[in-house]
């Protein structure tokens, strides 16, 4: 490694000396301008002026000192500020409408770190030696001798092992090691059941991609509050985010029928939107004329693209827009896709009115809810 100011390095013969370039035939052509060598070193004020040097030292020490001050302020902020006063935000300290704890801790921590960083860098820039030094590169490749020696050693080792002369041993080893991947892969099988397993064994209500908890007679209830819906509750233009009553049902002991994983799975397939429109504006698909009740229609809330719930409704155009990728469905036209990347209309839930006047389902959806999957057969109805 040579350290020096004068950077004139003779181009070694046979090297890719930079002081030339290659023409189309790979011949070395001398460059048009000779390398002037490393520029002469110019001193900084802190190198030549002791007062500037002392000033820089003081500046850097001050920066480090400020960092320490910030650390102290951090500790003080930690002790003084609570994040949330226990509710309502009334007793939380704020600064300019922002949470004081977060701002104070963040700004003081940032100060502590930044001052050290800036101090270190100023030290390097102003006071540390700034002579450019030169180090020679080495080619990335190993030397020819090393390569030959390695090959020789490899050949020796292979020869002593006899791997070349014993194909039976070698191939049977490769085969054995190769199939060793099988235990690793096969043990992952129990990561989860298959759709077939779940559909056949029904570990919870509505199990399987082709079923939901909806069935004949299940009431449509408002989401969150769980109250059933009468036809008279809805005006034209209303949109109700609804669920099957199964979601809110409790058994004799007062325990919810569905909780935990089965509840989430149920919601992810059974959530629906109920809209009321002028019956004249509705254009039902063939065979679906009696699926609506007096202009009240019920569609799956789960987008057929990749499964986001939809409830952006334009009541005048009857368009339902999914916020994720902007698939748009026309609810007056059997939820046909009118824009966006979804390829299938939303499944429709056939509605009827029960004896007490509440909206109930006639049956489960007639097709799988949610995103498409390989086995989904669009030609067959899946209703129970």
């Amino acid at each position: 490694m040579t350290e020096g100011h004068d950077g004139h390095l003779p181009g070694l013969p046979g090297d890719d000396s930079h002081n030339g370039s290659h023409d189309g035939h790979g011949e070395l052509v001398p460059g048009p301008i000779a390398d002037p060598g490393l520029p002469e070193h110019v001193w900084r004020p802190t190198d030549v002026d002791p007062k500037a040097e002392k000033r820089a030292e003081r500046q850097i020490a001050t920066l480090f000192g400020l960092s320490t001050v910030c650390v102290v302020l951090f500790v003080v902020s930690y002790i003084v500020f609570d994040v949330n006063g226990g509710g309502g935000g009334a007793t939380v300290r704020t600064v300019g409408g922002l949470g004081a704890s977060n701002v104070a801790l963040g700004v003081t921590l940032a100060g502590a770190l930044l001052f050290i960083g800036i101090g270190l860098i100023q030290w390097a820039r102003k006071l540390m030696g700034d002579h450019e030094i030169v180090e020679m590169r080495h080619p990335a490749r190993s030397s020819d001798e090393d390569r030959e020696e390695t090959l020789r050693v490899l050949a020796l080792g292979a020869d002593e092992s006899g791997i070349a002369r014993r194909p039976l041993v070698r191939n049977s080893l490769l085969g054995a090691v190769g199939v060793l991947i099988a235990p690793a892969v096969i043990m992952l099988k129990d990561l989860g059941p298959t759709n077939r397993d779940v559909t056949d064994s029904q570990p919870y209500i509505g199990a399987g991609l082709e079923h939901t908890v909806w069935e004949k007679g299940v009431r449509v209830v408002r989401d969150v509050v769980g109250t059933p819906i009468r036809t008279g509750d809805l005006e034209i233009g209303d949109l109700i985010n609804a669920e099957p009553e199964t979601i809110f049902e409790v058994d004799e002991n007062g325990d919810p029928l569905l909780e935990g994983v089965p509840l989430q799975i149920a919601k992810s397939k059974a959530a629906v939107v109920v809209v009321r429109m002028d019956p004249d504006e509705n254009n039902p698909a063939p065979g679906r004329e009696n699926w609506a009740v007096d202009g009240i229609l019920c569609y799956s809330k789960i987008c057929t693209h990749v499964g986001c719930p939809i409830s952006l409704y334009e009541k005048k155009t009857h368009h339902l827009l999914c916020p994720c990728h902007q698939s748009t469905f026309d609810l007056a036209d059997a939820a046909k896709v009118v824009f966006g990347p979804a390829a299938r209309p939303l499944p429709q839930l056939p509605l009827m009115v029960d004896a007490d006047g509440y909206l109930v389902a006639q049956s489960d959806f007639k097709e799988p809810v949610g995103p498409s999957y390989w086995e989904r057969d669009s030609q067959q109805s899946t209703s129970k």
Partner: protein
Amino acid sequence: MSIDTSKVASTNTTAATAKKPNPVGAAAEWADDRLGLATLAKKNLRKVFPDHWSFMLGEIALWSFVVLLLSGVFLTLWFTPSMGETTYQGSYAQLRGVGMSEAFASTLKLSFDVRGGLLMRQVHHWSAMLFVAAMMVHLLRVFFTGAHRKPRELNWVVGALLLLLGTLEGFTGYSLPDDLLSGTGIRAADGFVKSQPVIGTYMSFLLFGGEFPGDQIIPRLYIIHVLLIPGLLLALISAHMVLLVYHKHTQWPGPGRTEQNVVGFPMLPVYAAKAGGFFFCVFGVSALMGGLLSINPIWKYGPYDPSKVTAGSQPDWYMGWPDGALRIMPNIEGHFWHHTWSWNVFLPIIVLPMLLFTIVLVLPFIEAWITGDKRDHHLLQRPRNAPGRTATMVALMTLYAVFWIAGGNDIIAIRLHLSINQITYFNRAAVFVLPVVAYLITKRWCISLQRKDRDDLLHGYETGIIMRSPEGGYSERHLPLSTGRAFRLASRDRDPDVFGELPAGPDANGVEPPSGIGSRLAGVRHRLRKMMYADNIQPPTIDELEQGHHHAEHEHELQVPMEGHAADGHQFDGHHLVEGEKLRADD
């Protein structure tokens, strides 16, 4: 008298002379006796690193990763990676009585009951964004300056893998709190998995432990996020650094810099101080952003619920472009043989990212195949001196940008009062048209800049002083470039000669040209080489430089009568530098 020295220990390394007791030295000796580190240290402590701001972009990524590790460990002390249902009764009043997963409840606890918890959450999230952004900026710098060429192609591959892993790490990370926004993203991810032909449903059920959402996905993402991917990241980052140290850093051409040397500052002390200081700056900026800028306010989103959603559902920015591709994809689905082929999901979200990532991964190899350049390169190229490469990357960036904009189409629509439908239609066309336009514009721009450099070398730089000759003609004074600058501009390789068609018969060494597929590939390669080199401006040869100087001399002769006159601007005669002259602007 003689002393019996036979019993004196002769295997000590030093004679038993009294030395000043030095604790650091003693510790170092103790360590070196066992580890032998001095050999390694002597080579590397004064290792030379060239100094340029664009070389520090990778450092932003490196230090962000350290910040992520530190803040991440903090978060693991309180986070519960479980989807078990709980009813919240903690200190954030608006969510009391609401059922949620343990993961979400513990994140609320971190945000509201752990002092500094929200700060660390936000520092972690901001530095994750910075991590991926810095990797991208670093990738662009490396590519534009040609630092991916031999011998650094493998380092490029490692880097591309780091980018992929960083993106996945971010996705798994922001999904852990199980809030409404990230849960919607996981729901979409389930849709992506399901769209795969043949294996889709199985993969979905294996991933989620059954039907969506199940209760397995958060714990599984957690272990991927805190153990598996960080392990891979650490290993790859180490490989990346080792290769960097072994190959030594590239440098810009300039006075004193050749392909055989590295000019810069030593690791100890200057580079270590600057890099260490930069670490504190990166950490400090993350902390400042974490303290002042709110990110992912999960208490406003609420826990994930499959029947709830928010407008403006986007993934974090680095997943924005596949989301955009998904949004603008036309709604094609195939129904064959009682099965569904979800092209509308599978193509943009599975096929496209894999394809683009593979292209990024093999870019150095494609370039090497096209150019046929097998030399080592340690000097960087200015982007303008590789117009084909620069234009290709700008076209790729434009493609990325169009997808990215498509991913934010609803936010753009409300901010700029546009229609999301129109934006989607525009993007469907733009994704094909704009990259081509960007390629053409960039290529011509680079070539114009090359022309300017060549003019500067041959005629000197423009001073802005206009002279009027007695006949009435106007000309601009030029001054010669400084030696350093001229050297820098002239020190680039001449591009190979690619004109004409490929020779039909055997070449100079008697080798027959390839036939069949080989000949077709060779034809493609030739056309690509022409695209790459044909329009470029070559650096001037010695003869051309001589001619340029001669021409300047000739001009100077015509101005001899005006020399010495105080009329302003005559100092700029193209031959004398004007430092030290008394110019009117100095008054």
